[in-house]
């Protein structure tokens, strides 16, 4: 590997020399974490706050997302899509899409990306097909109609197929590059070759990820010559590096540090809400949490607005439950999180016969923004209504999820991967969702609803089901409590013409640079 690095460096040098006339800037972006798993394959590396920042710069999905709007679906590698029936979607592919390996994208590449060598085969590491199944629980096959047309065929009716085609996990890779690179997953997981505006130059896990402009990008000539993502774990170091002009961008700025950057005239902090909610998941088998009223009381005891106004400088918000307006027709209007009402919380605890039993509250060390601070605020809020929660700081997920203890409540977050509740409440809290597979919570009615909703195509009926799910998971038998919607902030040199997308993605495509 070492030799390969040297080789790569020596190949790069002449190119840099030639590129002297190229006046495009080189941009360095300090991020907290480049990739949690040390790979670049979105089927393993699926962390919203790490890899989502750069994946779309390299790999694209058949259907795009409007990063300058509200993430609505827009033509991407497919220029149009239409329903053949309730389990088949046909894509018309964009002609003349040049991939990073210099070949033109065809239907073969699409089919390959969803095929056995890339997604569902036995030769892959076992987590890859399993994760792919989570993204595509019922995908049967991808049919090539002609070089520019493919059909996605599902085993059962599914109205979320278009959503899934625009979501992470559906990225298109170059078939020939994959095969030329040995065809094995391990080698290709660190050398993604796709269609995005930037192509991989080098990746050093936990240190840096360097991308070069893909000048034949179908969306136009990329505005940056070289993008360097560097991993700088310390918040202060990211900010200091930005202020001393080491970096042009610093991502993952905690809300409390916005003022630190903003007082310098040449810098600004952009960003805002993303489609991700901070939640607290309960283990309903914990003796003190068995009574749903105790879990509901925990929600009524939380003053989410106070947390948002202080720890988030008012730039996050308390959302209407585990849903986003982005859901469009599936959004349940009028739904809210349980209101902040300490008296009600106390009454509920009294009715439930809660005697002050200790409830473990497991927290990771600032895995989420301001996590430890938020946890301490919550513990105080719970204490004030008589709930005896005890913060347990944990180092990793297995410790958080360890059944011994016993486990009580824990920190978590949920994303809307595409514009349907199936992508969040069903995927995370339904029968196959992590909260059930790790044995924290289950509910028979919720499970029936989840299965029905996945194959039902009647929007009005689905919306009703979703409303009932919210009622179950947030009121009747709380699975979690929704704390606040997350926001992400990126600090940058003011002069650079970049806008913050409504997502974790740091979009440096031609669409998002300039006026």
């Amino acid at each position, binding site marked *: 590997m070492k030799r390969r690095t040297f080789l790569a460096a020596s190949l790069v040098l002449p190119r840099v020399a030639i590129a002297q006339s190229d006046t495009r800037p080189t941009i360095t972006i300090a991020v907290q974490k480049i990739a949690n798993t040390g790979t670049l394959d979105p089927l393993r590396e699926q962390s919203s706050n790490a890899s989502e920042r750069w994946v779309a710069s390299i790999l694209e999905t058949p259907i795009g997302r409007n990063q300058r709007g509200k993430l609505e679906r827009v033509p991407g590698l497919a220029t149009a899509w239409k329903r053949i029936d309730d389990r088949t979607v046909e894509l018309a592919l964009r002609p003349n899409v040049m991939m990073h390996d210099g070949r033109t994208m065809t239907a073969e590449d699409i089919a390959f990306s969803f095929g056995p060598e890339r997604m569902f085969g036995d030769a892959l590491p076992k987590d890859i097909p399993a994760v792919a199944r989570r993204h595509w629980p019922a995908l049967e096959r991808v049919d090539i109609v002609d070089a520019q047309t493919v059909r996605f065929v599902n085993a059962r009716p599914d109205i979320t197929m278009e959503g899934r085609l625009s979501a992470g996990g559906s990225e298109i890779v170059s078939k020939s590059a994959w095969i030329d690179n040995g065809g094995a997953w391990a080698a290709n997981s660190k050398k993604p070759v796709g269609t995005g505006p930037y192509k991989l130059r080098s990746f050093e896990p936990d240190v840096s990820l360097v991308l070069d402009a893909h000048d034949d990008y179908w969306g136009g000539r990329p505005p940056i010559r070289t993008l360097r993502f560097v991993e700088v774990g310390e918040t202060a170091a990211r900010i200091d590096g930005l202020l001393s002009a080491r970096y042009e961008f610093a991502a993952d700025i905690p809300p409390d540090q916005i003022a630190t950057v903003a007082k310098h005239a040449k810098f600004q902090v952009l960003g805002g809400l993303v489609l991700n909610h901070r939640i607290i998941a309960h283990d309903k088998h914990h003796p003190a949490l068995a009574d749903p009223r105790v879990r509901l009381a925990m929600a009524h005891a939380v003053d989410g607005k106070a947390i948002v106004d202080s*720890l988030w400088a008012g730039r996050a918000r308390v959302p209407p439950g585990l849903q986003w307006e982005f859901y469009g027709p599936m959004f349940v209007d009028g739904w809210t999180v349980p209101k902040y009402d300490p008296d009600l919380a106390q009454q509920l605890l009294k009715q439930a016969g809660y005697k002050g039993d200790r409830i473990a509250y497991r927290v990771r060390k600032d895995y989420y923004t301001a996590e*430890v*601070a938020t946890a301490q*605020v919550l513990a105080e809020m719970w204490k004030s209504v008589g709930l005896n929660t005890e*913060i347990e*700081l944990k180092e990793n997920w297995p410790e958080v999820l360890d059944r011994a203890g016993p486990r009580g409540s824990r920190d978590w977050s949920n994303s809307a991967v595409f514009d349907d509740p199936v992508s969040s409440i069903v995927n995370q809290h339904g029968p196959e969702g992590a909260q059930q597979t790790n044995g924290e919570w289950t509910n028979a009615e919720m499970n029936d609803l989840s299965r029905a909703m996945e194959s039902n195509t009647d929007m009005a009926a689905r919306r009703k089901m979703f409303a009932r799910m919210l009622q179950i998971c947030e009121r009747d038998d709380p699975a979690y409590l929704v704390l606040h919607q997350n926001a992400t902030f990126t600090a940058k040199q003011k002069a650079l013409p970049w806008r913050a997308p409504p997502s974790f993605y740091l979009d440096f495509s031609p669409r998002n640079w300039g006026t």
Partner: protein
Amino acid sequence: MSGLVIAAAEPRVRRTRLPPLVAIAIVWLVSMLAIAVLADQLRPYSITALDLRARLLPPFGFGGVVTHLLGTDELGRDVLSRLIISIRISLLIAFGATVIGAVLGTTLGLLAAHFRGLVEQLVLVLIDFQASMPFLILALAVLAFFGNALPLFIALMGLYGWERYARISRGLAISANAQGYAAAVRQIGARPLRIYLGHVLPNIAATLIVAATLSFPEIVLLESGLSFLGLGVQPPMTSLGNMVGYGREYLTRAPWILLAPSATIVLTTLAVSLLGDWLRDRLDPTLG
């Protein structure tokens, strides 16, 4: 311990006047001890009591209010109250760990010196093991297996630095054994335990005490380093290292959060070091 000091020091006392710096150091340490003992009476607020509307208030006199003399932290908690409790916790950790390390190390060192041979080699292996094992791994082990109870954390910190006492006590005991007085006592039939407790230990106590004054600040610092890595005293508990560790993000925005505990660390370790040097000069029989 103080009995030993006097026993060892008495014959050598020549000057009784304290150098002013040492006097100041003693005053500082005594007041730190007093704060630690009276922490619950002194602190104006509970250390977890927070006020989200009064976050990041500067200290009184720098734009802050008199009700929060040293300002408030990122959750609107009173920095003074947290500092007071932190002093108690950190002193407890440092004292506890120093005593554990000294007792453990000295015992092992004396055992090695007494038995020599295999026992000695085993102790030496343990010493090498301790030096070769990054403390990060040890801390992680204790945290992962036993959780973050304070007594366990103190015991963990006691593991830091015991090998120094072991080295010193072993070396000194070997040379003491070779010297006349231990042999003389042995000849009149005293049991080994009595020889070590009654004769060898008092003679090497001075050196050990000085070693303790060295490891005390190191433990305070180690605790802050562990806090930086997230392996120190865990919230909602607090300590000097924990305050500095969590306050570092606010170095430019609200420096008072970490300035007060940092200054306390520096001044306390300075005081302990001054006292240690002075004790060494006074107790070490070889110094004129």
